[in-house]
């Protein structure tokens, strides 16, 4: 195949990446701005970072967000993997259409609808069974699990669609029970996809504002909720510093995660071809 890219396409690609990354880089540069005026350069300074770490509200909100993200990503990975396996390997079963519909709908559902409906559910449940008592970390976590398991399920399902079923069938023919096949063959094959699913769920949770706002109660302010309330009032230089930290951290983790999972997959392929050859 000719990988010819016309000059037009190359120019457009470069412009596209400038568009995508320019604003982020500019914001990161301004986080080192000594001036309080967010748009006037007043020399290099790291004072906004110092101010940020001295702010207890920011630290508390960040810790709450990280806890919610870790718990919801873990549960979402378990549930999403189960759902992905069911969709990719169970063939037809009663209620499949409803199930796959419920798995894919959260991917596009407007957040205001999901958020409002979950809040009304929690209120109704509390009225009926007294659980969950009030809203806060628990209800936000449940909400995050619900939308991020859909993303995990899609990642798992598409990974399984690429994996040859014959491997699992061979194990089955050799007398392994399905549960054993799942543990010995399917799950190890899925490990890289589960890692990227977990990372995706983690960042989605860390990032969510609208659904968290609906499902939160007094006393539970996540980091995006705090950022939003500050940003609504205008530009503040310490948010630039916070943004820089978050973006650098997330980028590092995602790049490392992608490289590691590619390595694992690559090594599997090499080992696979060696054992075959």
């Amino acid at each position, binding site marked *: 195949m000719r990988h010819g890219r016309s000059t037009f396409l190359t120019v*457009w690609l470069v412009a596209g990446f400038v568009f995508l990354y320019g*604003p982020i880089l500019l914001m990161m540069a301004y986080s080192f701005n000594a001036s309080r005026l967010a*748009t006037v350069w007043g020399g290099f300074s790291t004072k906004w970072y110092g101010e940020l770490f001295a702010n207890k509200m920011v630290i508390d909100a960040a810790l709450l967000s990280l806890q919610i993200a870790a718990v919801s990503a873990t549960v979402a990975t378990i549930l999403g993997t189960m759902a992905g396996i069911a969709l990719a390997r169970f063939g037809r079963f*009663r*209620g499949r259409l409803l199930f796959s519909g419920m798995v*894919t709908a959260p991917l596009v559902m407007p957040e205001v*609808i999901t958020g409002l409906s979950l809040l009304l559910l929690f209120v109704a449940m509390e009225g009926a069974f007294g659980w969950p008592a009030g809203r806060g970390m628990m209800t936000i976590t449940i909400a995050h699990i*619900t939308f991020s398991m859909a993303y995990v399920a899609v990642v798992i399902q598409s990974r399984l669609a690429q994996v040859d079923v014959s491997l699992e069938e061979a194990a089955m023919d050799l007398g392994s029970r399905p549960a054993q096949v799942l543990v010995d063959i399917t799950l190890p094959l899925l490990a890289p996809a589960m890692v990227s699913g977990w990372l995706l769920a983690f960042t989605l949770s860390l990032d969510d504002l*609208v659904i968290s706002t609906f499902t939160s109660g007094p006393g539970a302010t996540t980091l995006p909720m705090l950022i939003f309330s500050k940003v609504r009032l205008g530009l503040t230089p310490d948010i630039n510093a916070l943004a820089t930290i978050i973006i650098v951290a997330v980028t590092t983790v995602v790049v490392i995660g992608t490289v590691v999972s590619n390595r694992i997959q690559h090594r599997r392929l090499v080992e696979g071809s060696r054992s075959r050859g």
Partner: protein
Amino acid sequence: MSAAAEPSALPHAAPPHRSLAARLADAASRSWQAILLAVPYLWLLVFFLAPFLIVVKISLALSEIALPPYTSLWQWTEDGALSIQLYFQNYAYLIEDTLYLSGYLNALKIAAISTALCLIVGYPIAYGIARSAPTTRNILLLLVILPFWTSFLLRIYAWMGILNKQGLINNVLVFFGVIDQPIEMMNTDFAVYLGIVYSYLPFMVLPLYVTLEKMDPSLWEAAMDLGSRRWQVFVDVTLPLSVPGIVAGGLLVFIPATGEYVIPALLGNPSSPMIGRVLFDEFYSNRDWPVASAVAVVLLILLVVPILMFQHYQMRQAEEGK
């Protein structure tokens, strides 16, 4: 439909002549599979489907000053009969008050235009990546996906600093003498378009890339050999074959953009709000839960066809194994 829907046609169903022990083992593993399915199924029924039914229910109630702030739909009368009270006032109210109608129309218009802009900006990017050498392709793809991982809210915030009256664009334009006075770009529809295109671009590029990458390059070569020019090949061959990617990318942008709250709240014009913002304010400022629920139900009805189209596409993709 039972939640513990048993897989009825498993690929490895036991042949009838197997021993009792084997059959028992099979039954055990079958229940194992049923659990595997039942747990996520139940979770989604309780936390995804049931909430919608509750929204529909509350949209048919009346607002009242109580906890929770809406009337109950059913109650037992003195002689033990169940009386059900449905109120359609909330829906009538949505038609009477032009705020809602213009909110929906604004949302649909802004989402449609932003989707078209996303396609115009994203198509050449996807095409450019698909026509790059395989090694550069992976790096470029990661570069497209990376912004999606970093905070959505902060990326919108970044634009606030650029579009501001004292922001980068105005400063540059004034410096070069293009304009004398800074232009107001914040709190305009323009800023919302920009925000949506910026944050949803990866969702457009990825499905487009998937269809363009699958395309057989010999098709291009054949068309070129037959004397077509480059742009002609594009119009006659590439574009028609990439329609599935255009539809998928378009839906991934259009559906969530219609209900978008954060972008219009930070960059948009408060005097012509999109419906997502109307819903949010109805809930938090007016504290009218039934009307907010009715707004959500109508929004969902508007989006039901695009959502079903998206699901159809998603299922076909999953079966094709990509």
